[in-house]
């Protein structure tokens, strides 16, 4: 019986922009695995389902994946507002492992999920710290914070504020913004103190409007961002000259690793250039982990896969990367432990199903996103 | 029964009712006539609590009822009909009547839920009463028709029927006869007389049909330009030059009843 993997992605709704590229990540992994012989001799099958970025539709789609399509594991969903209801009403009770490639909410860490919920991105708590570190390093000593009023925005703002202040910086003012407004001029003038740079935590959809109004209104000239705003369309639409020198962080693997390079070239070969949006490599790794776990368990039973998700990351095991699937299968069949090093990093699940991670410090230079360095935040 | 004391009401610059005072005696059928726009319906609206007066006072059996809401007046026994028929157009004729009786047990949601059998029993009695009224008005064959589909005159009858579903003390009728066929109008007058005699209803009737007024009403109040200009029985009023000038005219309609 073939291994069936479900991808639970927002193909419509607020996070649609990330849904398609995440799906590509999963698809790419599965194509590679099938090219390398599949799992237990059979090609892996992929089922994609749309969450519409809405919890009601998300749980329905998830249950359909589990019951009708009979998937053994799920990659997704993206927004925590969907991932968590899916975990608590579908996957944890049905006993199907679920790996989110994008939900960064700290709530997930302590969720009572019967250990069926995992993620391949680090919690927001880490990125806030990473950003504070970068900011301090760049000599920023005060900042205004405007964040999208959802769990992503608020979580990051909290983490940044406490880390930044611990490092001696000052948050002059912070405010959450509601998405979808036509004007953010009031919000901007509320947080602006005339000199500090703006930390904007959000997504391009409204972030672009905010940046534009911030520049035009003379509220801010310097900006800091998080991963959500790392999108080339912003530079394209607003003009590089205003954004050059702005910087930010994003969960990112060291691209000097073999795994990352393998992923980049494989992605390019199939879909063209890797878009600078996050969560593709994490989706890709999630699909690999599920397949390896199935091989390791010699079963497509969901619970068995769950039990082996940590086993394929044995610290004493032989290091394998995404390009080495056939080799990894051989090792596992020989009873040798393996340690998967993913495109997005080591992806070692802790007891809560969380991963630590590395972050990129990126900057906009001449209109390009340039990764300055990739580092592990000192917690 | 109803005591109207110096009621006034203006709309913008228009003094629709000015210092009107009169009494509707218990057991009487009091007529209210006057040219179009004299303020008759406005006065009814004030009595029925639909619009507040600018000044003045209304008492019902000695009790001050000025400004009480319509439904509260209903429970004190004061019922009205409308000049333009106000039927429940998407309910059947029967339902239009069954709605009316006051203090139905089933109108309290909790009682409907907890003692539905009693509610059904009560509703059956109301249904029988409604059918009687319909038969009386000779529109029994329309009982399951939607009220909105009735002809203009049939709606007027239904309006009157609704007042027959209550234990009212005083009924205000705004042009019950407009658009009602003459033959039926006779029946209608009969019904009003019977209700007055047998059930002791007091009526106050606005009407432009002088035959009907002459047959039913004593006394008759005459309003013009918002003020009360005369009162008395119809025969006297016909001789009153002011009333003739303002209202009756000299043509056939004013004289019809006298012939």
């Amino acid at each position, binding site marked *: 019986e073939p291994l069936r993997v479900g991808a639970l992605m927002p193909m419509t709704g607020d996070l649609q922009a990330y849904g398609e590229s995440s799906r590509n990540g999963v698809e790419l992994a599965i194509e590679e695995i099938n090219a390398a012989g599949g799992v237990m001799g059979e090609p892996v099958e992929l089922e994609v389902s749309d969450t519409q970025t809405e919890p009601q539709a998300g749980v329905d789609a998830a249950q359909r994946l589990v019951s009708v399509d009979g998937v053994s594991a799920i990659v997704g969903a993206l927004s925590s507002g969907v991932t968590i209801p899916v975990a608590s009403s579908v996957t944890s009770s049905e006993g199907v492992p679920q790996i989110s490639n994008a939900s960064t909410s700290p709530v997930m860490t302590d969720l009572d999920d019967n250990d069926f919920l995992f993620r391949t991105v680090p919690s927001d708590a880490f990125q806030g710290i990473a950003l504070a570190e970068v900011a301090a390093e760049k000599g920023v000593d005060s900042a205004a914070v405007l964040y999208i009023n959802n769990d992503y925005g608020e979580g990051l703002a909290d983490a940044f504020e406490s880390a930044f202040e611990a490092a001696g910086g000052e948050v002059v003012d912070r405010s959450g913004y509601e998405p979808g407004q036509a004007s953010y001029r009031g919000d901007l003038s509320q947080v602006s103190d005339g000199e500090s740079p703006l930390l904007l935590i959000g997504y391009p959809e409204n972030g672009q409007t905010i940046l534009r109004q911030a520049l035009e209104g003379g509220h801010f000239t310097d900006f800091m961002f998080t991963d959500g705003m790392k999108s080339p369309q912003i530079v394209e639409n607003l003009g590089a000259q205003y954004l050059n020198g702005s910087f930010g962080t994003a969960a990112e693997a060291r691209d000097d690793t073999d795994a990352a390079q393998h992923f980049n070239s494989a992605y390019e070969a199939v879909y063209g250039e890797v878009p600078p949006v996050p969560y593709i490599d994490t989706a890709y790794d999630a699909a690999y982990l599920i397949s390896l776990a199935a091989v390791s368990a010699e079963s497509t039973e969901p619970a068995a896969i769950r039990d082996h998700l940590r086993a394929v990351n044995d610290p004493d095991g032989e290091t394998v990367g995404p390009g080495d699937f056939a080799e990894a299968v051989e090792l596992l069949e020989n009873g040798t432990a393996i340690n998967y090093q993913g495109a997005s990093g080591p992806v070692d699940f802790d007891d809560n199903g969380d991963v630590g991670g590395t972050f990129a410090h990126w900057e906009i230079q001449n209109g390009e996103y340039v990764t300055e360095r990739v580092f592990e935040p000192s917690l | 029964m109803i005591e109207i004391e110096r009621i006034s009401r203006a709309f913008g610059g228009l003094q629709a009712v000015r210092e009107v005072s009169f009494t509707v005696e218990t057991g009487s059928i009091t007529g209210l006539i006057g040219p*179009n726009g004299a303020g008759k319906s406005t006065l009814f609206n004030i009595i029925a609590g639909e619009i507040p007066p600018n000044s003045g006072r209304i008492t019902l059996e000695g009790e001050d009822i000025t400004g009480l809401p319509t439904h509260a007046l209903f429970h004190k026994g004061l019922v009205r009909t409308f000049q333009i028929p106000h039927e429940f157009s998407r309910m059947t004729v029967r339902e239009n009547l069954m709605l009316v009786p006051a203090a139905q047990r089933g109108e309290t949601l909790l009682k409907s839920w907890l003692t539905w059998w009693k509610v059904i029993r009560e509703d059956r009695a109301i249904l029988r009463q409604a059918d009687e009224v319909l038969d009386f008005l000779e529109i029994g064959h329309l009982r399951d028709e939607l009220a909105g589909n009735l002809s203009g*005159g049939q709606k007027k009858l239904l309006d009157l029927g609704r007042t027959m579903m209550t234990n009212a003390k005083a009924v205000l009728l705004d042009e019950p006869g*407009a658009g009602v*066929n003459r033959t039926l109008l006779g029946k209608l007058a009969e019904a009003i007389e019977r209700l007055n005699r047998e059930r002791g209803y007091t009526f106050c009737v606005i009407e432009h049909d002088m035959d009907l007024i002459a047959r039913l009403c004593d006394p008759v109040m005459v309003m013009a330009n918002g003020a009360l200009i005369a009162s008395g029985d119809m025969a006297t009023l016909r001789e009153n030059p002011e009333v003739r000038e303002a209202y009756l005219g000299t043509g056939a*309609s004013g004289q019809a009843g006298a012939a």
Partner: protein
Amino acid sequence: MSLIKAEGLYAGYGGVDILRGTRLRVEADEIVVIVGPNGAGKSTAMKALFGLVPIREGQVEYMGEVITNRPAEQMASRGIAYVPQESNVFPSLSVLENLELGAYAMPGDLGPRLEKVFEIFPKLRERRQQAAGLMSGGERQMVAMGRALMIDPHLLMLDEPTAGLSPRLIDETIARIQEVNQLGIGVLMVEQNARQALAIANRGYVLATGENRYEDSGPALLANPEVAEMFLGG
């Protein structure tokens, strides 16, 4: 050629025929009155002529042209004006606007026409800025008639024009209708004030349960004892 002529009309609502073979005719300068008990189908007959109720069978001819089941919105531009029995004014528009809109189908210089309407109903001149919905019942009836006269119609169809009017105004209205008629406008009206209406009618119809019962000159109908007893209240 008759102004309007209907033969063998079958029409009604939702499959039930209210009119059963009704026929009606108005000659160029006639006043024709329809009387009958409530629910006889008088209003339905008017609506059917005007294209507001679908005619299932039968034919309507207006000035020699067959207009059976033509849409109502074309009637005004043909010169037929109709005042329905209920909701016959635009309540939130002022009296003046009601009259102006009455002329919608026949644009042109409204001044003289307005003048004529104000002459017939002086009260409307006084109240021309008031919203029609706030007028008394009788005043509304005047607005409605005035509105209809604004297109200088050939045929004026009135559904109970005197309902709710004071005796004096009834007389006046009847007189006005005669006046209008003398200008060469045919009048077809439904009336419950049958005596007065029939008195001025060239012809009258008695309608009961959708069928023609009697048809005669106005005074002759009035004099007919059967009619008087059954339909005119003795």
